[in-house]
């Protein structure tokens, strides 16, 4: 199986690569259209800031490529937010695979960002949560969130219920960091690779 991790300027992807190493998978880290288009699975990871990341994706024309991909795509953290339509983070227009507007958490009593292990619950048929408990803990670090919407495939509750995962056609997205979410996170990645 050919796995492509999309190379761009959002954060550090070492932990994603090591997560794939741990389950014995090979991958390439690339921003080449041909290599991404012909991969069996595409991973779009990232930590970072939305407007800087989108500017870079536009410069490399990856913003046009990614929404047209046909194979299973897994986007995590900022990667998931960039697949939505818009982000409140520096008023950024994103790629719009999911018709969802990303908002900033607002709370007077809870700390922002949302950092740590929180439980998620699958919504409907979520193939990435196959074999996991009904409520499973995964690791989050974020200040912006996707509200609940028709594409929500797992729910987490912080400040209010929000989308821990999204799914539409071949696009799968997780707000949490599956790559460092223990056995549960590893299972999510394995489920994605088994699609």
């Amino acid at each position, binding site marked *: 199986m050919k796995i492509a991790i999309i190379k761009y300027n959002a*954060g550090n992807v070492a932990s994603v690569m090591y997560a794939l190493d741990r389950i014995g998978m090979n991958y390439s880290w690339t921003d080449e259209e041909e290599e991404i288009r012909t991969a069996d699975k595409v991973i779009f990871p990232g930590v970072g800031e939305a407007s800087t990341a989108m500017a870079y994706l536009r410069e490399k024309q990856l913003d046009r490529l990614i929404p047209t991909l046909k194979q299973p795509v897994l986007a995590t953290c900022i990667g998931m937010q960039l697949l939505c339509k818009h982000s409140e983070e520096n008023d950024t227009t994103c790629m719009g695979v999911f018709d969802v507007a990303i908002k900033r958490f607002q709370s007077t009593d809870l*700390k922002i960002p949302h950092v740590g*292990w*929180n439980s998620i619950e699958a919504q409907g048929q979520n193939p990435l949560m196959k074999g996991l408990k009904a409520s499973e803990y995964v690791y989050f670090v974020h200040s912006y969130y996707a509200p609940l919407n028709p594409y929500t495939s797992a729910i987490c509750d912080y400040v209010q219920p929000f989308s821990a995962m999204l799914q539409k056609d071949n696009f799968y997205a997780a707000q949490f960091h599956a790559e460092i979410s223990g056995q549960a*996170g590893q299972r999510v990645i394995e489920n994605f690779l088994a699609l």
Partner: protein
Amino acid sequence: MLTKRIIPCLDIKEGRTVKGTNFVDLRDAGDPVELGALYAQEGADELVFLDITATVDNRKTLVNLVREVARHVNIPFTVGGGISSIADVSALLNAGADKVSINSSAVRRPELIDELALQFGSQCIIVAIDTRRVDGLDWVHTHGGRRITEIKTIPWAKEVESRGAGEILLTSMDTDGTKAGFANVLTSEISSHSSIPIIASGGAGTMEHFYEVFTEGKADAGLAASIFHFKEIEILALKNYLANKGIPMRI
């Protein structure tokens, strides 16, 4: 529900765990990779690796160690000790560390926090604050708590947050090593006025101490070294104890 975090800290010297003992399940208690993986398996929520030698010569050893840990550990981990530049942080993050912790270098030049947060994002920048009470006031200390500064602890905590720290690792030198409980009053004071998570450190001796630091101390995470390292408290037993007392835990 967002859980409180239990974080074992491993002291590293020349690439080896210091003070290793009594781990029957381990082939080599001095091997930080094996010990880290065991803690992860036992339910640790994160790990902190603290390089207590932190000399230039040891940097390569540390980066190699971080790479090995990242290959074997599937929970977030932080690396601290002697980090003072963007290049230091870049090397550690590229090797697979999820976060770095800075301490003396931030006291020396607070702008470093802004620079690192801008470059790498706040989520991976922990500022460690070593504090000690002198004449009724809490002062920031450096050099492993041996050297007092002219900075008061509570305003410093606010400053590091406003400069972009993602979390604060607060170690009370008054309670550290006493096994008499965390510095709950100070931890609570800082946590109540902060919007970033506070990791409390120093003084853990019993399971009840963790209960107190999460309730009275309002800490978001509790860190300890020796009680886990010497197996005085097992992580899973601790998490079960806390969960039974109503503290949200990932079990």
